[in-house]
């Protein structure tokens, strides 16, 4: 797949504070890319740089393989800001048509585009209410819609699901799915790792202003925690000597280990415990996940 957006060696300092220190990655056509990183990693700065709102000290940004001028960038690329950037006293319809016109939708097309957006966001029945009374999730969807009326080819979303309940989050990802189906390429930043795991095709992890890993989920896992599953056995009483490769906790009542093949190795493990005269109270098997990979890469747990 071809890259629609290419960032190479992006650097930016605010005074002594280096927000971006040589970040490089690419966004491919029609993909949904997750940009992950702890607080202050430089995600927002990176998005603002791509949108032309932050001037890089060094590095290149290419859209469809070229350094484009401002006008083409505005046409091709849109950003959904982290804050809800809407006019609270205006109705959903007025917000949409206002920002649509400002983003270059022609007067003859604006009605159709607004009608499409209202339908797409599921806000058609509340279209003419001032949005001040809308719920957080509704405003999030509208915030998203206000950025796409002019049909950009690339959409960058800065935490589109922050403060939104799981159901609304589903809604938002369904909306994004429709955009992809229409040919758009998307990048989201998020602090919900499950979301990135479940919904995004590729993941870029950034820390201290540079990319520490990127790839599909299995690729990332392979690079970091590997494919081994973590097994935790809880016993009815302490077991003095555990099997080889196991670590104990709680004075020998809890044992941790890693195994590659659950079906083949787990029965043997249980048998050895029973042979030692103990009974297994609980077994927990965890597949390697993004959380583990993330901690391995950044040394930090990710929280919203």
């Amino acid at each position: 797949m071809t890259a629609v957006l290419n960032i190479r060696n992006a650097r930016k300092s605010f005074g002594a504070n280096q927000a971006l220190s040589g970040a490089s990655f690419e966004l491919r056509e029609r993909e949904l890319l997750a940009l992950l990183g702890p607080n202050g990693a430089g995600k927002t700065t990176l998005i603002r740089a791509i949108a032309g709102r932050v001037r890089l000290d060094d590095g290149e940004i290419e859209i469809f393989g070229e350094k484009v001028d401002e006008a083409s960038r505005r046409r091709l690329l849109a950003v959904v800001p982290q804050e809800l950037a809407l006019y609270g006293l205006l109705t959903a319809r007025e917000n949409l048509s206002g920002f649509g016109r400002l983003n270059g939708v022609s007067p003859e097309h604006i009605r159709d585009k607004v009608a499409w957006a209202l339908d797409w966001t599921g806000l058609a029945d509340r279209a003419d209410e001032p949005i001040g009374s809308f719920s957080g999730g509704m405003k999030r969807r509208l915030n998203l819609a206000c950025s796409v009326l002019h049909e950009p080819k690339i959409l960058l979303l800065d935490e589109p699901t922050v403060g939104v309940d799981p159901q609304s989050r589903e809604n938002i990802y369904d909306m994004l799915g429709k955009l992809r189906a229409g040919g758009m390429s998307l990048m989201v930043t998020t602090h919900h790792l499950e979301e990135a795991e479940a919904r995004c095709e590729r993941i870029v992890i950034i820390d201290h202003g540079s990319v520490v890993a990127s790839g599909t989920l299995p690729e990332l896992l392979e690079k970091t925690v590997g494919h081994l599953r973590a097994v935790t056995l809880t016993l009815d009483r302490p077991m003095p000597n555990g099997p080889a490769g196991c670590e104990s906790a709680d004075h020998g009542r809890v044992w941790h280990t890693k195994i590659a093949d659950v079906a083949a190795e787990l029965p043997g493990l249980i048998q050895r415990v029973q042979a030692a005269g103990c009974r297994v109270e609980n077994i927990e098997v965890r597949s390697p996940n993004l959380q583990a990979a993330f901690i391995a890469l950044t040394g930090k747990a990710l929280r919203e």
Partner: protein
Amino acid sequence: MIGTLLRIQWTRLRRDRVAQTLTFVVPVVFFSIFALIFGTTGNGKTPSIRLAVVDEDRSAVSKRVLAALGREDGLKLIREAIPRNSAPNTPRVPIDRERATSMVQDGDLAVALIVPKEWGKYFPDFGQEGPEMELLADTSNPVAPQMTFGLLQKVAMGGSPDLMMEKGLKQMESAGSGFELSTKQREQMTTMLQQLRSSAEAADKEAAAGTNAASASVAAEQGGGAINVKKVDVLGAKKTNPAIAFYAAGIAVMFLLFTCTATGGSLLEEAEDGTLERLLSTRLGMTGLLMTKWLYIALVGVVQITVMFVWGALVFGLELWSHLPGFIIMTTVTAAAAGGFGMCLATFCRSRGQLNAISNIVILTMSALGGSMVPRAFMPEGLQKAGLFTFNGWALDGFLKVFWRERPLWELWPQVSVLVALTAVFLWLARRLARRWETV
């Protein structure tokens, strides 16, 4: 409980510079401004009134009365001025009746005194036989004519006792009341009159030499009678409701400034809400955004002033319709400049709270100095000059030229050019200050 809460509030105030300024500094500043306006600069003296004098009589009596008038602390006599519509360095010429009238009409000063021919012959004119003095007044300043009138009576009574007595005796004799002086009495009287005259003249000389002659007498305080003065309202006479033009303009300009800064605050609101970020990523750009906001604010301002003046016309008899062209010109340039001012202040401030605090201080100060609260004519000269450094001063001068002085439109050029220039400066500043929101 209460103690804790009090401590929290106090700590918050201590950390908030702006709130501190508002609480403690602003009242002191305002108190000082108003103290200055009403002339008590610490020594308790009222500011002197500038009075143009035209002596058409040129008699010994008129000269003496005017000289005595000139010695009064409360008055500063102006006898010469540069001719109208001439360059500032043109030599001064004595003021005549026509020039005096134009000076009052133009607002150069609030009062002018004309001593007509033959006036001295009849002084002191208890019987109101001779011609009256004329006091040309700009009634937008009610204090100056009153003060002048009072001082005039005072110097007449106290400054010319010899003339008073002479005239009194003559009247008594000529009244045929059977009262007649003997030769001896007449001689004594003549001696006394000579003494009075020489002491009055000595007072004139002393005053000329710089020592302050205390010439006030008890009679002067009682006022009225010795001089007949006709007050001529050279500006407001034919207006149905003269004062209203004054206050309409003053209030309009002050509120315009408040409206404009509040509306300018929408820029900060957008920055806080994030809509600014969204707007800046559209084709509009910062310059376009600022110009649009400014245009909007100025339009709101025009509507606001129009509503107020129309209301004034309908309810209070303000003569709007007959001054429409001047009104349109002044309203447009004033709203444009006020809009620029609002943008400038909004881009300067970091938050809406800061904007509110700073705009209150700046607008109230400018309004006080610029004459929106108390007409500038009431203020001492120094403060009147200071008023020209305010936005209100220029805007009000323009509105007053239209509604009060009824000058031809072209004479608005100084006010219009200053306000247009201010607009440009404000917008340029706002554009520079707005850079902080642009690409970083």
